[in-house]
């Protein structure tokens, strides 16, 4: 997570044109074959540890996952070769000539597209969104729906570059309470009431 330090307030001050460094520029897509290979390994381990009952006709329950795992290894190898031979640098989006936007907006987008960042993705905002969801999943049971959902809403709003944290708390609590009333009280779904349950 060095990304967090590298460009804290990136949009305000284009970092000293630090281009995505070195060999991995345009090759970070290697993470895709990596995920596929890891998943194939998971399936393969599943196949190897599978306890197939005696006397099962071929092809048994391990046949199809094995097929998928082998195909997964082949495709990830091909993808690795592809990324090594022709890197795919990320291209920031700008308005095309068809977009109905003002000249100022167009210029802004083009200027923004020229700014080089150490990472193409904004990991700081992303961390707010991902962390918010992880926190939601963790505290939903103990703290209850209203608190957890409000926290999730607030974190995602923050990730979307909201500038009014206090006002956001009000909106977040309103949204989570309305959702609780609508789905738990009216529609009869079972949402955890948590620490507010006794009130």
């Amino acid at each position, binding site marked *: 997570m060095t990304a967090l330090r590298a460009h804290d307030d990136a*949009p305000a001050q284009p970092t000293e044109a630090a281009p995505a460094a070195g060999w991995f520029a345009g090759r970070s897509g290697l993470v895709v074959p990596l995920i596929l290979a890891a998943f194939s390994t998971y399936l393969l381990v599943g196949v190897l540890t*599978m306890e197939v009952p005696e006397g099962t006709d071929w092809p*048994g329950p391990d046949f199809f996952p094995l097929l998928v795992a082998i195909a997964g290894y082949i*495709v990830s190898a091909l993808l690795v070769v592809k990324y090594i031979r022709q890197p795919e640098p990320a291209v920031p*989006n700008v308005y095309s000539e*068809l977009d109905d936007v003002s000249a100022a907006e167009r210029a802004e987008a083009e200027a923004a597209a020229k700014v080089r960042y150490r990472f193409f993705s904004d990991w700081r905002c*992303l961390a707010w969104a991902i962390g918010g969801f992880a926190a939601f999943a963790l505290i*939903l049971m103990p703290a209850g729906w209203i608190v957890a959902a409000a926290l999730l809403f607030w974190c995602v709003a923050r990730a979307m*570059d909201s500038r009014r944290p206090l006002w956001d708390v009000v909106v977040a609590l309103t949204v989570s309470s309305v959702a609780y009333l609508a789905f738990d009280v009216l529609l009869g779904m079972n949402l955890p009431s948590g620490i507010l349950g006794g009130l």
Partner: protein
Amino acid sequence: MESLSLLAEGFGHAFTPMNLLFVLVGCLLGTAVGVMPGLGSSMAVALLLPMTFALDPSAAFIMFAGVYFGGLFGDSTMAILLNTPGQSSAIASTFEGHKMARSGRAPQALATAAIGAFIGGMVSCMVVVFLAPALAEFSTAFGPAEYFALALFAFIATSSVVSGSALKGLTALLIGLGLSTIGIDSVTGTERASFGVPQLFDGVSLVTVTVAILALGEVFHIASRVRRDPTSRLLRPKGRPFLSKAEFREAMPAWLRGTAIGLPFGVIPVGGADVPTFMAYGAEKTLDKRRKTPKFGTGAIRGLAAPEAAGNATTGTAMGALLALGLPVSATAAIMLAAFRQYGMQPGPLLFERSPELVWGLLASFFLAMIVLLILNLPFAQVWSKLLLIPRPYLYGGIAVMCGLGVFATSSSAFELFLLLGAGLLGFVMRRYDVPLAPLLIGMVLGPLAETSLRDALISSGGEPGVFFEGPISLTIYGLLVAAIALVVVGRVRSARRSPAPVAEAPAPQADVHA
């Protein structure tokens, strides 16, 4: 005319005040999600799927029909007004549609799209009513080998033929297929790759993965761009819908031609509605060149009318294929199939015998949804665009809360929420590196069908692989597959030669899911 009397009965089921309300609510919600830039109809269905489980099956599916068609309509509204197609099937509409909007004819463009969608949808629903029972009958001739051929066709078509990079399409497909194998094996009862985690015994939930990949992944994707890329922010539309008689006459033949092109594609699993929309657009463009004053490039009404009609015609017949064959040809249809399974029903020939009131009620509600949409959208397209006034942080905050709510409501387990988060991260990575999303969902839905038919066919033939190439039906399907691949390869080579990048005019669609 047995179909007609059954359909009349279906209308009887659908026409209760409560069900009409569900169609209306479904249309409203579907359109509301569909008009959000980057959120398409499959996102609408995915987000609202868990909500419908609180209803009884027929009400749930009636609402679904509304959500689905509403979402499609919302897609094209935004494609026209903002040039932000919610899914790939709306891309063809942006070319001439957005030009119309930019030249101050946004209202006419919206009306053209609404009427085109209405005509395409109506005609294809009629076709489904008469054809679906026959199709269901025909599919009883299908054995394991035939079903395997069909599944293989869908896999190859969605992962390689339709998507830009075959390798990336296959990556998504294989992950989907792999996910579908996790859990207790249905034939032998063997525990597979669940490593003793009880929540995995029933397999990885398709609802969770769908919501994660389509909705949560999009939230993460926007978060990763929002401070750096002004084009990820929302724009505001202007205009009022109205169509003159001359324009109506101009668009009419295009609507009909588009419908004719779109109809057959719903039954052929080549990855959804984007292929026929591009074909319809291409056909109109070719015809336009022969006219005295070619209008394409300046906002030609026909260039919008044809793909809109084609898209909805395909959608209609795709529903027929789903009901009669149990074969989802698009991500949205895959989600619908998951909904059927949630109620313990298996679409296919038996569904017509076991729950006819549900099937015909659903078909009737397609018609209702179409009419409700036309009424809603001709005057209200304008109002929809007001949704864009919700500040972005609250819009996406609300979507994230909906994801959590939907998945927790169906499972009541925190484990499922972590699965949602993990799959959401996968969805983000796939968006970041342009890996198509639809093959993953199709692989997950059709994986079990492909696996059981593969195993059944091999077991009954004693391990002899020749069994896959015996029947005339399988051979026809393989023939079609080869033809489809050849057609696409030739088409791509040709269009690459003629103009370097015709599709590149459109912005990269934010949700690369095939409607």
